[in-house]
């Protein structure tokens, strides 16, 4: 059971910033009240694999942990991009872990019931393409039984699979949880329905979010396959036609929707691969708002938020979160950020700033 790191769901808080930059504090349980009929909430229903596999580097006998980090192809459940770590476990901050044994192409790793062959290495990076021996079914069974969810140093209790699956977790293709989804439960989804707010899902293979290695982290996020059901693409089209907002639950939903978007804001149903980073210069064609964790400047997720709001507004929001003790990290509180303006004209910035300064005392719950 997850304990210390995770606020009780009913105690979690929500910091919301609207398109004009006005900030509100809410209990997260009241999320549905911030949305209007014709709005559409889109969540990532990927279930999370127990992607951390510990074992031995056969050529040296040295202990090794590999974290499956990305798919080479979703059609082949035996091949992965993986990050290697040396001895130790998640209680040691990733940054302080010893390096893994030197891993070369052709090396084999024994990972519990599985044997992995290194197909490719990436120069000095502790990154490798692995092929696990067996069929898709036997590899899945081996990972299911031997793997552990990728752990976080800030969560003292070991995380079990049930801790890292969101309530709507379906197909197991994510390597780390699409954690913004922890903000929702089925009662919230029912509240959306009662209010006329739509709920739809897509499946996006969220990859590893951080390795503690700056050289590797500069490459993140890796390419991530996704699948958008026809029903979801149709719901987005209906929402846009009715003038509603599309609210993405987490950065992975933004990546998938924007990757699948045509110039006119229509979303292609089907399979795709999200590549590249979303940042300040990325025009958002589909998503109007994002529900996300409480991120700090410098984190990779934070860069994506710059597509939604100006640096000034985000800095103000971060300061507000800090001042009011919002809990960062995957199991913490949430932020809802509405896209400020399609083209982010300079003229909208000053009223936004003044509303920032005006918000403080009145908005504290």
């Amino acid at each position, binding site marked *: 059971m997850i304990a210390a790191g995770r606020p009780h769901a009913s105690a979690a808080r929500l910091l919301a910033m609207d398109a004009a930059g006005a900030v509100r504090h809410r209990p997260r349980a009241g999320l549905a009240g911030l949305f209007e009929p014709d709005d559409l909430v889109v969540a990532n229903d990927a279930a999370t694999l127990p992607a951390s596999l510990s074992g031995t580097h056969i050529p040296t006998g040295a202990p090794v942990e590999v974290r499956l980090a990305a798919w080479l192809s979703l059609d082949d459940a035996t091949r992965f991009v993986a990050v290697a770590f040396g001895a130790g476990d998640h209680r040691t901050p990733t940054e302080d872990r010893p390096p893994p044994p030197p891993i070369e192409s052709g090396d084999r790793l024994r990972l519990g019931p599985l044997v992995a062959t290194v197909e490719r290495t990436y120069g000095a990076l502790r990154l490798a393409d692995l092929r696990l021996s067996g069929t898709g079914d036997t590899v899945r069974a081996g990972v*299911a039984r031997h793997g552990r969810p990728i752990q976080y140093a800030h969560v003292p209790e070991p995380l*079990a699979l049930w801790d890292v699956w969101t*309530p709507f977790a379906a*197909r197991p293709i994510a390597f780390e949880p699409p954690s913004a989804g922890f903000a929702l439960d089925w009662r919230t989804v029912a509240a959306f329905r009662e209010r006329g707010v739509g709920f739809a899902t897509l499946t996006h293979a969220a990859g590893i979010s951080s390795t503690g290695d700056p050289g590797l982290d500069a490459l993140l996020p890796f390419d991530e396959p996704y699948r958008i059901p026809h029903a979801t693409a149709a719901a987005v089209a209906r929402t846009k036609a009715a003038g509603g907002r599309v609210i993405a639950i987490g950065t992975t939903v933004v990546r998938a929707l924007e990757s699948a978007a045509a110039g006119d804001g229509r979303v292609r149903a089907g399979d795709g691969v999200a590549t590249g980073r979303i940042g300040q210069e990325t025009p958002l064609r589909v998503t109007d708002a994002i529900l996300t964790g409480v991120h700090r400047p410098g984190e990779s997720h934070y860069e994506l938020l710059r597509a939604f709001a100006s640096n000034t507004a985000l800095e103000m929001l971060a300061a507000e979160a800090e001042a009011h003790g919002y809990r960062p990290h995957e199991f913490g509180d949430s932020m809802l950020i509405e896209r400020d303006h399609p083209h982010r004209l300079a003229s909208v910035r000053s009223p936004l700033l003044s509303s920032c300064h005006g918000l403080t005392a009145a908005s504290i719950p």
Partner: protein
Amino acid sequence: MQIDTPLKGLRVAVTGGTSGLGLALVEQLAARGARVAFVARTGSAVGRTARRTGAHGIVGDVGAKDDIYPMALQITGALGGLDVLVNNASSLGPTPLALLADTQCEELAEALQVNVIGPFRLTKALFGALAASAREGRGAVVLNVSSDAAVNAYPGWGAYGASKAALAHLSDIWNEEAAGEGVRFLSLDPGDMDTPLHALAAPDDDPATLRRPQDSAAELIEAIVAALPQRAERAVA
């Protein structure tokens, strides 16, 4: 000529799939074009059934908490999602059957673990996949295999009957709660069948007087199909 389309491509998981009613379900579903994953405790039996039916075999114990999520992961991983879950694996409690006053607490707990808590856990772990299937217009059904012992007070069937009654009520409440998500819950009694479980409970019964599990399985499959959206609607979705 009847074209048997309702099951083609339907993604179904069955627990307790290597003997009795569960095996009959796996055989018929697979033969009629469904994509089937089944769970059972014994690796060798799982391998045999998988080879014979072409279904995905998964080794796991519904009564073991730590087996549930690995099981769910393998089911949705193999099938790419899930339309139908059949919670069929069952425990009799004490064997030979015992009067409640002679039943060990641990025996009652084991029956509840396998017949109520295990199905609850597995359904919860797979609920996201089932609801996703419903949102996509494919429909979603959870069939919990019940018993007339859930309704009638048969002496000697205390642990089993009480656990099956709890499962039936869980189904009914979940069916109300999940209607908005489009997930249907069925609780059905397959009747007294000539199965290993029945032989364990009532070794003196004449098998000739019992139903064939194949006949019960065919009826349950018809009930599942009836609870799903019509095939044409699913195809459009």
